[in-house]
């Protein structure tokens, strides 16, 4: 437990999920990834973004899940949805056409420019750890208008150099990335925010992530210890407001009653 909201203790993971959900305020169409993004987006739908349309790569637009989907292909995302389409249509007509405002991804490794690895740790041909791979992440990173990332910080995940670039972020910096994205006809502008268990990072004009908000209970030392480069810290760094009682109730009672994501 890292903090207290209205006298209720909460975990780092709960803070991370709540902070990520709040970032979705005002967004219209969100492409939901597997795992932590799934719970964060479903919390946002119940709080700051009730009108947000959820797109699941399984082929669902306008999902209204009655429970937290157990996976991104759960039957609860189908019943009561606006539209169910083939995966070809979902990726071609929704994502590649530029209709998705936010793609919400997890990551195993990320670098300072928001480039992401979810493929392997070690050498591709002889990996130390074989990770899931791209799934839809590669094309989400390219074609979602904005990319949100949610992941726990550690010096093994916030690295100087990712072992494999599965999903492009700001490449070697904003100037290069903007030129390549424009010239190549990508629909996406790249990563907007990285929400971790310690704070909230946005990307500055150079395309590098900068800590803008520090979660209750987290320290800058802790931030620096869990990151492999010397991170930029915003001069106007502010504390992340603690989860409200309502946010915690939704997470604990409705979205993750077994505590799979929030332990």
């Amino acid at each position: 437990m890292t903090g207290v909201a209205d006298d209720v203790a909460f975990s780092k993971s709960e803070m991370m999920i709540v902070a990520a959900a709040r970032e979705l305020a005002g967004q219209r169409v969100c492409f939901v990834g597997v795992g932590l993004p799934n719970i964060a987006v479903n919390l946002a739908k119940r709080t700051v973004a009730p009108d947000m349309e959820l797109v699941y790569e399984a082929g669902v637009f306008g999902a209204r899940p009655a429970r937290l989907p157990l996976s991104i292909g759960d039957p609860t995302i189908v019943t009561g949805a606006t539209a169910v389409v083939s995966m070809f249509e979902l990726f071609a007509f929704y994502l590649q056409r530029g209709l998705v405002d936010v793609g919400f991804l997890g990551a195993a490794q990320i670098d300072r420019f928001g480039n992401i690895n979810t493929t392997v740790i070690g050498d591709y041909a002889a990996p130390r750890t074989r990770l899931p791979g791209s799934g839809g992440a590669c094309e989400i990173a390219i074609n979602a208008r904005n990319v949100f990332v949610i992941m726990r910080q550690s010096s093994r995940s916030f690295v100087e150099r990712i072992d494999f670039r599965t999903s492009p972020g700001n490449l070697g910096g904003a100037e290069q990335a903007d030129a390549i994205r424009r010239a190549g006809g990508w629909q996406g502008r790249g990563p907007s925010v990285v929400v971790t268990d310690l704070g909230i990072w946005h990307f500055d004009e150079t395309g590098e992530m900068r800590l803008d908000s520090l979660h209750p209970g987290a320290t800058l030392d802790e931030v620096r210890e869990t990151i492999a480069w010397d991170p930029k810290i915003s001069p106007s760094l502010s504390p992340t407001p603690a989860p409200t009682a309502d946010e915690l109730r939704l997470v604990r009672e409705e979205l993750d009653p077994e505590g799979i994501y929030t332990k």
Partner: protein
Amino acid sequence: MPGKVTTMRDAVADLVRDGDTVAIEGFTHLIGFSAGHEIIRQRKRDLTLARMTPDVIYDQMIAAGVARKLIFSWLGNPGVGGLNAIRRRIEPASVGDGTALEVEEYSHFGMVARYTAGAANLPFMPLRSYFETDLPAANPLIREIRSPYSEETVYAVPPLNPDVTVVHAQRADVAGNTQVWGLLGCQKEAAFAAERVIVVVEELVDEAVIRADPNRTIIPGLIVDAVVVEPFGAHPSYVQGAYDRDNRFYLDWDPISRDEAATQAWLRDWVYGLDGRAAYVEKLGDAHLASLRPGSAPSGSVDYGTYA
């Protein structure tokens, strides 16, 4: 999402602009006649009209002078003959000193592939057609492309992204979530390819009706700008389950359209002289419309299950 229900007059006034590329699709089924007539009534000009089968609706629109160019794949009055008003703008003997209609021509699959590339935001779509034909010479936008996996060469067509696509459908909700059964044609692709979308429906339904059967949704409200409710808006074409094709009309159009004066008289009587589809329906008369009603053939219901 706020309601998008509006009148045809406002939808066309707001969303169709002179010089636009407009696609009113619907392969025999669900042809947006009421939208086409409103475009005529508002005297839109210099449109590029795209449609696989221009059909009687584009013959009427082109006779009324709204278009400078036609993009198509089959130019005929299905089951009847030619499209005479359009032919008069293409064949030099009848064009005379008038302005010829510019044409850009594909095959059916080429048109479908163009909309698909447009909907998918692809720079081209490959297809196995056009080999050893004169079509690539007639239309230089049909181009060869080499496979990166062999010496094999196929053809490509470029994306078609209309400024406006009009889709007629059985039903939608106020947000524009639209469902169709029966022939689907290329309406989904033409809608996703477009910058703006007008949906015209036989029936406005509650959102719950749409959400009860999400596999039937072909167009999400997300890409829809206006929803117009106009029963019989597809007449003289048909709507699966609602009314039959008015074949008499298609046959009658042939002699009318062979004569320029008769064509213009028809447009006065049935388009300019009426203020919208409701007046057109009234003029057609209840007895005539009743004769087009099919018998009942229910689909049956399936169960999606509740997972709470």
